[in-house]
């Protein structure tokens, strides 16, 4: 199954301070391990919400809202798309991630329609 991991790093999402080289190296090490295990399909980091937009739909009406957005705890700062054999496997991998804050949401991707 495929799972989408959304990194909700809270206040850190929009923080200007870049991660330390040590933190980056730790993250890289973890990511390498995931790639070597054949888990990562795709990964990406997002610009802060100050540079993002929202489009709201209301019937025929569309309105564009400029960032930054205030609900910092819900803002997604990065994502992974993983191939795993169960949600539990995804959780076990995720627990090993070198983060000390934030919330990571795990969602299973719908696949193989009509099968």
């Amino acid at each position, binding site marked *: 199954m495929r799972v989408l991991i959304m990194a909700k790093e809270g206040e850190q999402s929009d923080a200007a301070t870049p991660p330390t080289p040590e933190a980056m190296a730790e993250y890289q090490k973890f990511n390498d391990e995931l*790639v*070597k*295990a*054949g888990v990562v*399909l*795709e990964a990406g980091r997002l610009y802060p919400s100050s540079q993002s937009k929202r489009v709201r739909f209301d019937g025929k009406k569309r309105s564009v809202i400029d960032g930054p957005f205030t609900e910092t705890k819900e803002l997604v700062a990065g994502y992974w*798309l993983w*191939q795993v*054999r*169960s949600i*539990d*496997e995804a*959780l*076990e*991998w995720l627990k090993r991630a070198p983060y000390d804050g934030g919330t990571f949401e795990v969602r299973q991707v719908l*696949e*193989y*329609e*009509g*099968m």
Partner: protein
Amino acid sequence: MTAGPSRSVRSSSTRACEGARAIGPRDEDAPEGQGRHETAVTEAHRAIEAIWRIESARLIAGLARVVGDIGTAEELAQDALVAALEQWPVEGVPERPGAWLMGTAKHRAIDLIRRRKMLERKHHEIGRDAERAQEGVDLDPAIDEEVGDDLLGLIFMACHPVLAKEARVALTLRVLGGLTTGEIARAFLVPVPAIAQRIVRAKRTLAEAHVRFEVPSGAERIARLASVLEVIYLIFNEGYSATAGEDWVRPALCEEALRLGRILAELAPTEPEVHGLVALMEIQASRLSARVGPSGEPVLLLDQDRGRWDRLLIRRGLAALERAEMLGGALGPYALQAAIAACHARATTSAETDWPRIVALYDAVAQLAPSPVVELNRAVAVGMAFGPAAGLDLVDALVAEPSLMSYHLLPAVRGDLLRKLGRSEEARAEFERAATLTDNVRERELLQRRAGECAAKPMAG
């Protein structure tokens, strides 16, 4: 006594291993009010099952390097799993569960080796002090060494050419995929005892042939790698077009093969054919949901809704193919087949397919790895590029080929070409013959339907 984790231990640990998987759902069904302890136990079991899936191959690989054979390594790993099943629900899952399992298994491995050496000494009466001193020194570094190549060693061992294809496939799924005997049996529609026997015999054959735990090099590496790639592609193909049964595709097998391929690509990044195989599987897997119709029937490549092809897998496949090409040299058979798959992936409609290029690529495959099946595929491409008559000439030349006598795709292809030439009656007979030759229910239905279509409305030449 002397055989380390003895027969009886093995049978109980195997049961425990399979039990770990069954426990989750069963406990969830338990009546309410059984308390927090039950929930904690269930959670721990689910965590253990997931951790086993993540760690078992590395664990078995690390142990196989030390003890020298897969059977013992697997027993030791499962003993560690049993210990985890006993301790983790009570004490909690350790912070580094992989290291815990390895540590536990390692202690047992050391005990086992000590006992073996002791036994050896008794048998041969070489109670030399020097040897005794040596044993304590070597063991720990041997186990703690960098494990990067261990997994590769295990893959090469499980896919050793001394084993029959079916044995290689079963053993690989077992020790590298972490699948239970039951899961493998279900995947291949074979009774559980048959798979269990196959795995036991495979381990025995490896031991009797004194197959060493190693990452081969030079000419041997090329031959051994071909055997590994063959096993992975066999697993993929059984999922991609099941040879028998009710289901036309079994995505879980494709996913497992892809996972093994992706792991291998990171372990052996300089082998172009590994990337070639990964590219082939990624691109073929991109069509998995498009090649099954609403009621489970097969949908052929040119009839598929290309909007349902998985763009992510296509992109990954094309990237893997590029990796194979970047390594230089002429493309191998897997990379060439991936290049053919890429031709289809790049065409936004089936009419845009670059058939002459596909013919040229099949020419190259036929030179490297000639086979009647490749010739048949080439004939299809020729039929598309240069007209059905040209394709039929090539197919007719294959009719007498003994290895294709019971291959259902030969009459299926022939029927297709005949129909395009307006020879409906002959086409119908070919489709009907093809239908009798396949064991897959869904494919048989498709072929019967095509036979029926020939009778109903003859196609204009």
